[in-house]
């Protein structure tokens, strides 16, 4: 018999989630004069470097290449930062999980919250650039909502699996830190799929679940709609969320006891 309460979204748990996120907000860039600007410098620096290097080679055929590039960086950055944050914080929250009845899934979600906030601010910046290029429409913004929800579900799914693995074997964190850098190259951040060979583009599109999210979000920002990527994004989001949730339910006790 499972003694742990099954219902996740009770009023008390919702309240706890809000308080955990609120506490992280208060500590964001703690004791820093420039605060949020520091965390925005990373994507901006990455943008400046990649733009300087790749704009001539890849940018000449893409309209609004700065928007194309920045939206790609923002999406990959969110994925990498959120997965790393959840993985590290989940193991660090072990005393909390061993000494309180706080649901572990709430701790997991709370850790995505703070990275999500930064992502949404960066995305808002992309929306402003899209407006500047005259590519923004209300219809596209509405269509972005299901993609964003699917993207968050996808990240929660992947993060929960990584967090579990990291509790069991700490090498996962180092491995993921190395591997996550590769995502900037195996996802079409600075190039288009048609710029690479046919087999490579198929591999990047179908074997890398991050690609459909990036392609669909970016096409909306660029004023078009990619139905296939939209569908794939929803599919990957639901699939990874279910997989992560299932794995978490099965292994959370083992992970916490052995961490």
């Amino acid at each position: 018999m499972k003694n742990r309460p099954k219902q996740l979204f009770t009023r008390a748990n919702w309240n706890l989630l809000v308080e955990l996120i609120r506490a992280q907000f208060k500590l964001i860039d703690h004791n820093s004069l420039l605060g949020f600007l520091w965390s925005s410098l990373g994507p901006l620096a990455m943008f400046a470097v990649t733009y300087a290097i790749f704009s001539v080679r890849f940018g000449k055929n893409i309209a609004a290449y700065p928007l194309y590039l920045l939206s790609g960086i923002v999406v990959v950055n969110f994925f990498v930062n959120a997965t790393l944050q959840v993985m590290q914080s989940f193991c660090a929250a072990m005393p909390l999980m061993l000494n309180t009845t706080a649901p572990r899934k709430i701790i997991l979600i709370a850790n995505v919250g703070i990275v999500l906030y930064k992502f949404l601010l960066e995305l808002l910046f992309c929306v402003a650039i899209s407006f500047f290029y005259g590519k923004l429409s209300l219809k596209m913004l509405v269509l972005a909502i299901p993609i964003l929800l699917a993207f968050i579900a996808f990240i929660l799914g992947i993060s929960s699996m990584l967090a579990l693995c990291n509790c069991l074997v700490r090498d996962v964190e180092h491995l993921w830190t190395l591997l996550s850098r590769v995502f900037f190259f195996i996802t079409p951040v600075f190039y288009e799929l048609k710029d690479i060979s046919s087999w490579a583009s198929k591999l990047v599109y179908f074997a890398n679940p991050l690609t459909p999210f990036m392609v669909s979000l970016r096409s909306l920002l660029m004023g078009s709609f990619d139905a296939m990527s939209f569908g794939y994004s929803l599919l990957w989001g639901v699939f990874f969320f279910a997989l992560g949730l299932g794995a978490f339910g099965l292994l959370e006790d083992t992970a916490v006891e052995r961490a």
Partner: protein
Amino acid sequence: MSDPYVIAEHVSKHFHVLSQRGTTFRAIKAFLKREPLMKKLNVLSHVSFEMKRGEKIAIVGKNGAGKTTLLRILAGIYEPSSGEVYTEIAPKVLLNFWTGFNMDLTVIDNVYLCGALFGGERKLLARSLPRILEMAELSTLGYSPAKRLSLGQIQRLSLSIFLNTPGDFLIFDECLAFVDKGFARKSDAFIKEHISDHKTAIMASHDGEFLKKHCTRAIWLDKGSIRMDGEARRVISEYESVVSGEATE
């Protein structure tokens, strides 16, 4: 006679611990030689008891007897390896007084954060804030970072938040270990008032007098099994005499 509020039936718990210092080399060697790298550590063995609504049970036993593990199982933090546990409602748990605190946040922020961990909502905590701070004797330090507090002050604050948030079923472990005598007396009175007749509580402590004062029944855990279960004064006195006898030997 009321229905049982808590049922523990043949609850056993074991953990897998490393049988030697765990290095990659040893792990590979153990894998190749098919030797087990981990060994089974039995912490609880066939613990069974029932508890009625309103009962206050003390859990006593030496370090490593399985008290905290039992409390964690009752709280739903651990799943038993075998056996079953039923609790009518989710308990409010205080197993470690510094857990949940964020030392960079202010005392007041920590009241809301820890309060949420005990199931308290912001509105309710805001109303109880003066009382919480006053009980913890921290009324003037509300906006100081928690890292400026001493261990005893943090414990007072934690206990004060715990006792000022709602809950009918309480589980707590060694909650007065580091506090000064003045606060211990104050907490004693407050605990007496707080865990009134209708509340159910399970508490573990090495302070026999504290347990005798607040509990009606005691369970003595010895090497993971129940050695004695009965009236609090009798069980605790028996436990203390055995422990002091062992110490003088």
